[in-house]
Structures are given as structure tokens and as C-alpha cells.
């Protein structure tokens, strides 16, 4: 949009935007643009850590209603200006980074809770709401979306929808895509559309699942109705130690395939048991730490299900840690995400989550571990945190010791991507996927074609029809 020859055109466009959102909601100062140039992705972080300036948008706009979003999208289309939606900016894949500059559309002023429907057990809200604020509103009435990841304090409902996020309790309550009832979306041509009133029907393909996970490349989600649940009266935990990954994974698989429906299972490999659990919970044990929980409103049912899961674990575990460690883990589950408990520079670290069926996931674990640790100074840690009846998700990270991270940011990024490519291809080549709940973003955009093979043309053609000018979050999701 901006170059020296376009100065007056830029002023014209800024005037148009100001006319839509008002003077206070159009930001062009350097500090405001800078605030939207660094998210949770390691690459812009290392860039600024080394004192370099990140890619700035030309401007930031804060729409306050869907009509304003529609007008902004139309302006972007008219002038072929890249448009990137920004919720909490807490994504780890660079999905909200304005890499082609243009306009950043910060959704946080569209944050109203519109309706809490106590008959249908749904809540409707504008998607710019920080999810914790939505949860606090529901909590007043004894409800919850049960979508409660660590990023709840910073991420918006829209961000979760845009990249198919998940929460700590997803094993029982589902990922965000399982919670959608319907959505309002602004298409790349500015049209405001709504998906059907309910998500289960026989009226053609589900538009919810087209836009959910589209990471702002097919349209801007502006409002959503999602499920809510009664806050459980009982929530109980148990924790076990296992001597190895295989036994622990198998215990988890049995719990799931027996349809016991725990609300959470989390299995930490040996490295992460030492790295994280010991630091945060003070559990100094060798082996793999498994914690799981059951919740509900009937204590007898919760106890029965818990008993079945405990019996499964007792077959192969080395030690039962009882309920205290599990409860402590639940109480401190967000503490892991505060510095210094979270990984940070000067380490290089990447979250490479993947997902596969049970017959494949263990091989993927060992393969990715070997791939990561083939690089000097690199450690691989993993936990399995979202489980299904058919498989589970591995939340794995590589961590490169600062001594082996090049000082030059370009070299650091290239090394980072090398580790990434090698590891994630192990997953792709063994039946796993690029990502389970953090999204694709910028980080793995170039691998989408490889993952989908010929099927990618379906996504590509949808993109070409909906967004022929490629203004919507360009450079992401393989587009």
C-alpha cells in the first residue's frame, strides 16, 4: 500500500478508514503498529530480541460492529490491500502477523456478550471478546464453555475459531470446532453471511467447518454462538508414574477406547516430566507422569469412571501418586505459561504439535525425538494432552540451547526452520499431520500443499473464488 510514490493515496485510504471507524479507532503511530507486529511466534520474537524491527502493518483499525468490518473489507478489496485479523495476538504460528503489511483489523472492541440461552445451553458473543471475560460472564450463572486453554487470558473467541483451538478439557467437551452452533462471517467481498442456525443437519456441507480453522484467509468471523455447559460439581484427579512412554500411552489409549470420557488426560514424557513437572509441581520422579481427571454433577458416576481408569493404570504403572498431585497439577495448570516456567529466549524453541491414530503416534514420537535431537544442543520434550477414541495429539517441543542458537537472527531463523522441517516431516511421513490445534499460520504455510497432496486444490479453489484478490491474510495457510 505504501511507498514513497503513494503518499497521497495512502492519505486517501486512511481517510476512508477513519470515515468508517472514527478517528480514535484508526491507529497509525509507530508504537500502535509495532504492537501488532509481534505475536507468540518465535520468529518475530527472536527478530526483535536481536534489536531488529519487525514487519509493521500500515495501520491498525478497531471496528466496533460488523458493518464496520464489512466496509473495511470492501476498502481493502477496492485498493488490493492485505488485511490481517488480530484477536489476542497470542498465536504461536504467526497467523496474525501482517507479513504483507496492509491493514491489521484488531477485533477486541467487538466484545459484547449478546445472549446466554439457558434453554439451548448456548452463548452468543462478538468474537473479539477475550475468552476469560466470556468465561467470567458465564461463571456468574454457573456455566462454562469448557474451552479453557492456558491462552484464555489473552486469546479471543475469534482467534480460537480461526485456528481451531482447543482447551485443557477438550478430551470430554471437544475442541472449539465441536462447540460451534453458528457463526457470522464477513466474506472477502464484504458480504455479511450467517451459517445455518444449528450445526447438525442434512442441508449440504457444514459452512461452520469451512470457516473455522481458515485463519482469516476466507473471511472474518465476527460473531459466534457456541455451546455452554453446567459447571461440574465434582472434578477429581489422579496421577501415576509409568516407567516408559509405551506403557503410559497404552494406558491412556485404553481409558479412551473404553469410552470412559475423562475430561482431561495429560501424559508427559520423561524429559518433560523432569523439565516442567519437577519445576512447577516439585515432583522429582523418573519416568513418565500421567494425570487424568473426571468431572460431572453426579459424584457416584464420577467415582465409578475414575475407578475404572485407575484400574487400567494400575496394570502397568510403577507408582500411584494419588489425587494430590493431580489436584495440584489442575490448580497450577496455567502457571506453566508464565515466565520463567515457560520456555523463552535466548533458547530457540518450537511447538510442533501433531496428531495421529494410536497405532502410529508412538512411532511418530520416537521419530520426531530422534530428528530433533540430531541437531546439536537440541532437546525434545513432549506431552500428550488431547485424546480421542481413535488417537491422540502430541504437544511436542524442541528446545535449542542458547549456546547453539546463532546470534545473527537470519541464521537463527534458518536453523529453527531446519529443525522444524526435519521433525514435522517425520510426522507427515508416518501418518501424522502438521498441526492439531495451534494452526498453520505462517510457520507451516509452505507445507500445506505437501500435506494435502492433490486434495489441496479443493482449498485452493475455494480460496480463489472467495478471495480472488488474495487480500485476506495472505501468505498463511498455504495461500
Amino acid at each position, binding site marked *: 500500500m505504501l511507498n514513497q510514490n503513494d503518499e497521497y493515496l495512502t492519505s486517501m485510504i486512511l481517510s476512508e478508514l477513519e470515515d468508517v471507524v472514527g478517528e480514535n479507532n484508526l491507529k497509525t503511530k509507530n508504537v500502535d503498529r509495532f504492537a501488532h507486529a509481534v505475536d507468540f511466534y518465535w520468529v518475530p520474537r527472536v527478530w526483535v530480541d536481536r534489536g531488529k524491527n519487525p514487519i509493521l502493518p500500515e495501520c491498525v483499525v478497531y471496528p466496533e460492529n460488523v458493518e464496520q468490518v464489512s466496509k473495511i473489507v470492501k476498502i481493502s478489496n477496492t485498493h488490493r490491500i492485505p488485511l490481517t485479523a488480530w484477536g489476542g495476538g497470542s498465536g504461536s504460528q504467526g497467523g496474525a502477523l501482517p507479513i504483507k503489511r496492509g491493514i491489521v483489523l484488531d477485533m477486541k472492541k467487538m466484545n459484547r456478550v449478546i445472549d446466554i440461552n439457558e434453554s439451548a445451553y448456548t452463548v452468543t458473543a462478538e468474537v473479539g471478546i477475550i475468552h476469560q471475560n466470556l468465561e467470567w460472564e458465564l461463571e456468574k450463572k454457573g456455566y462454562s464453555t469448557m474451552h479453557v486453554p492456558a491462552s484464555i*487470558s489473552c486469546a479471543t473467541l475469534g482467534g480460537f475459531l480461526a485456528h481451531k483451538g482447543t482447551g485443557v478439557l477438550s478430551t470430554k467437551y471437544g475442541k472449539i470446532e465441536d462447540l460451534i452452533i453458528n457463526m457470522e462471517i464477513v466474506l472477502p467481498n464484504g458480504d455479511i453471511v450467517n451459517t445455518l442456525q444449528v450445526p447438525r443437519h442434512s442441508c449440504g456441507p457444514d459452512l461452520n467447518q469451512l470457516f473455522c480453522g481458515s485463519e482469516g484467509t476466507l473471511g472474518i468471523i465476527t460473531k459466534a454462538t457456541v455451546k455452554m455447559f453446567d459447571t461440574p460439581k465434582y472434578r477429581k484427579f489422579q496421577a501415576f508414574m509409568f516407567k516408559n512412554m509405551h506403557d503410559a500411552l497404552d494406558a491412556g489409549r485404553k481409558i479412551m477406547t473404553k469410552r470412559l470420557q475423562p475430561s482431561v488426560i495429560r501424559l508427559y514424557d520423561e524429559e518433560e516430566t523432569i523439565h516442567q513437572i519437577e519445576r512447577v509441581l516439585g515432583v522429582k520422579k523418573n519416568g513418565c507422569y500421567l494425570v487424568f481427571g473426571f468431572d460431572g454433577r453426579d459424584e457416584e458416576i464420577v467415582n465409578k469412571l475414575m475407578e475404572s481408569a485407575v484400574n487400567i493404570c494400575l496394570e502397568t504403572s510403577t507408582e500411584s501418586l494419588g489425587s494430590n498431585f493431580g489436584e495440584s497439577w489442575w490448580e497450577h495448570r496455567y502457571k506453566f505459561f508464565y515466565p520463567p516456567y515457560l520456555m523463552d529466549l535466548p533458547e530457540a524453541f518450537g511447538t510442533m504439535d501433531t496428531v495421529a491414530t494410536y497405532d502410529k503416534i508412538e512411532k511418530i514420537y520416537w521419530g520426531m525425538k530422534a530428528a530433533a535431537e540430531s541437531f546439536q544442543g537440541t532437546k525434545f520434550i513432549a506431552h500428550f494432552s488431547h485424546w480421542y477414541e481413535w488417537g491422540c495429539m502430541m504437544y511436542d517441543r524442541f528446545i535449542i540451547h542458547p549456546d547453539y542458537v546463532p546470534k545473527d537472527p537470519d541464521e537463527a531463523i534458518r536453523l529453527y526452520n531446519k529443525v522444524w522441517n526435519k521433525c514435522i516431516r517425520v510426522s507427515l511421513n508416518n501418518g501424522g499431520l502438521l498441526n492439531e490445534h495451534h494452526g498453520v499460520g505462517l510457520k507451516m504455510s509452505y507445507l500445506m500443499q505437501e500435506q494435502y497432496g492433490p486434495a489441496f486444490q479443493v482449498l485452493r479453489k475455494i480460496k480463489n473464488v472467495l478471495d480472488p484478490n488474495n487480500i485476506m491474510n495472505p501468505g498463511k495457510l498455504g495461500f
Partner: protein
Amino acid sequence: MNIENYKKDIDACRFCFMCRHVCSVARVTHEEEMTPRVRGLLLSMVLRKATDYTEEISEKIYQCTLCKYCKEWCEGGWDLPSAIIAARFDLVKKGLVPEVVKNVKESLIKFDNAYNQEGPISTDLQEVVSQYITPAKTLLLFGSSVLYLSPEIGLSAVNIFKKGKVDFMVLKREAASANELYNLGYIKEAKEKALTLLEKIKTSDCQEVVTLSGSLYYLLTEGITKMELEVGNLRVYHITGFLLKLISEGKIELKKTLNKKLTYHESDYLARYSKLHDEPRKLIKQIEGVDYVELRWNRGKARSIGSALIKNTYPDLATKLLKTRLDEVIKTGVDTLIISSGEDKSSFINSTDKPSSLQIIDIVELIDELS
């Protein structure tokens, strides 16, 4: 640069998102650039010499209310507010302070208040000041918000002291703005004010100080050490603690009951600077007949309505903060809001969003009424 002393805190906060939903300013503006992590990020770029301090950065640094909510919330123990004060020291040195802040600084130095008021507004209080300047055991410090905004609180305190036969005195002029100057980054001026106050206290020959001001209480119990000064063996009370003492010693008695549904809002100073949570609540519990309702966000998590500084530098922010807290109060259905701050009383009373049925009263006034 002073911010070098806080590099660890700045680097910890610059990429962290865990407190943005509770930051007072980010919460009411919904703007990314108003979050703690962006302040940390900007300061980290200055530390790395990727940029120098600029007017834009300065404005962001001064738009923090220093309510310390981020620090209270953080499970990592990081102290961004101290880093922000350090940045303000740097900005003052560089002459990069926003004009609105300079104006408040002038007012603090000339008039010992942030309101640009030359003299106390109450003649009754001025009369008291002239009557009680003889050295006594107990020194009563009003604080600038009582002197200049809510003198009725000061008069109530004097009434209670008379009822309790407390041997007390007041200062002719308080030199009460050290904390505020420090928080704005004017360390030299802050120290001068603090020294002036300490000198006046020393000259008064008192054995104990009782203050109505959360800011002065914090200054004399903790803040003063940051200026490398000390109060010595002087006992310092916040008025709520002193009133509890008077009641427990039988020197004042609450004779009346109060059949009201009420709640209590605490200022940033009491909530998070001094963490003085229990004394006001114990005082309220002494009152017979009350139906006390705790606000959802209370004690260390009490939502901020901003200090005198933010009200007089960025009043729009202060208005937004006040509105959200008032909404929270109204939702409880109480008919009375108790506060323990002349500043906050003035803010709530003058709010255009305050329902006429909601009574705002300082706890000192209430104890005076009931004793």
C-alpha cells in the same frame, strides 16, 4: 538507563500475554498497544538500542496507571510497574515527558496536590489546622485528596479524635506529594518532598503518625525506602488500623446500628501497594445491622479506578475505569458504597453514571456518624 536495572522483568513481560485481561488500561480500552506486554516490548527495544525513547513511547509509558494489577496477577513474580517507573526516570532525564504530565508535576511541587489547587477548599478544615498545630503524641496527616477534594473526611477524623480524647496535632502544610512525584519519574523532587515531610514529622515530636491517605501510608511504611530515606522508630497507622485500636481500647464506641446493604471499594494503594485488606473490613464488621456484600473483584484483585495522577493526565482513561467499577458496584444491589480514600470518594460522587440512590461515604465519616 534506569531500565537496565529491570532488564529481567522487562524481558519476561515483553512476550507474555497472561495479564492483559486484567491490566486496568487494556481492560477498558481493549487496545493491544495498551497492554503490559507492549510496554515491556517497547522498553526491551530501548534496552537493545533498536530505538531510543520517543514521544510515542513516552506517552504509552505514562498511560499506565501504576495500579500494580499486573504484578498482583503474575504467577512468575515479575515487576513491570517498577520497570515503568524506572523508564519514567529515564524519560524525565531526557526531557521527554508529555505536557500533561509536566503540568501535574508543577502542581505537585507548587501546591502539593495534582489538582492545581492553591489552597484547601474547606475553611472548617483550615480552622482545625490552625487549632491543632501544637506538638502532640499523635500526628494526623490528611493527605492531599482530603485537604483539597474531600475535607469532610478530615473533619470526621478530627471529630472522632476529639471523642476518643486523642492527643493529636496536624501540620500547617503537609508536603504530601512525594509518592506522586516519584511515580511520575521525578526522583529528585520526590526526595525533596519526602525530606520536607520527614523534617516536619521530626519537628512535631510526635510518637505516631495516623494518615487518612493510602498514598502517605505507603510512603511512610515502604515507599520511603526506595528514596533511600527512613522514618526511624515512628509508628505509622492507616486511619482504619487506628480506629480499630481506638475501639478495642474502649476510647470510642459504635452506639448506633446501620441497617444498610453495603460494599467496600479499596484504592490501589490499599489493595496492592500496602495490601491493607483486613483493617477496613474489620471496622465494617464492628457495625451492627449491616448487610455486607463483597465486590467480586476485591482485596488484591480490586479493580482500579485510577489515581489522582491518571485522572489529571489522561482523564478519559480514568472515566472509563470508574464506570466499569461503578457498574460492578451497582450490580451488587447495595445502597451504600464505602471507600477509604478522599480521591476515590470524590471520583464516585462526581461520576455522571452514579445512581442518585447510591450513597458514597468514607469509612471515617461512617464511624464518626455511628460513634
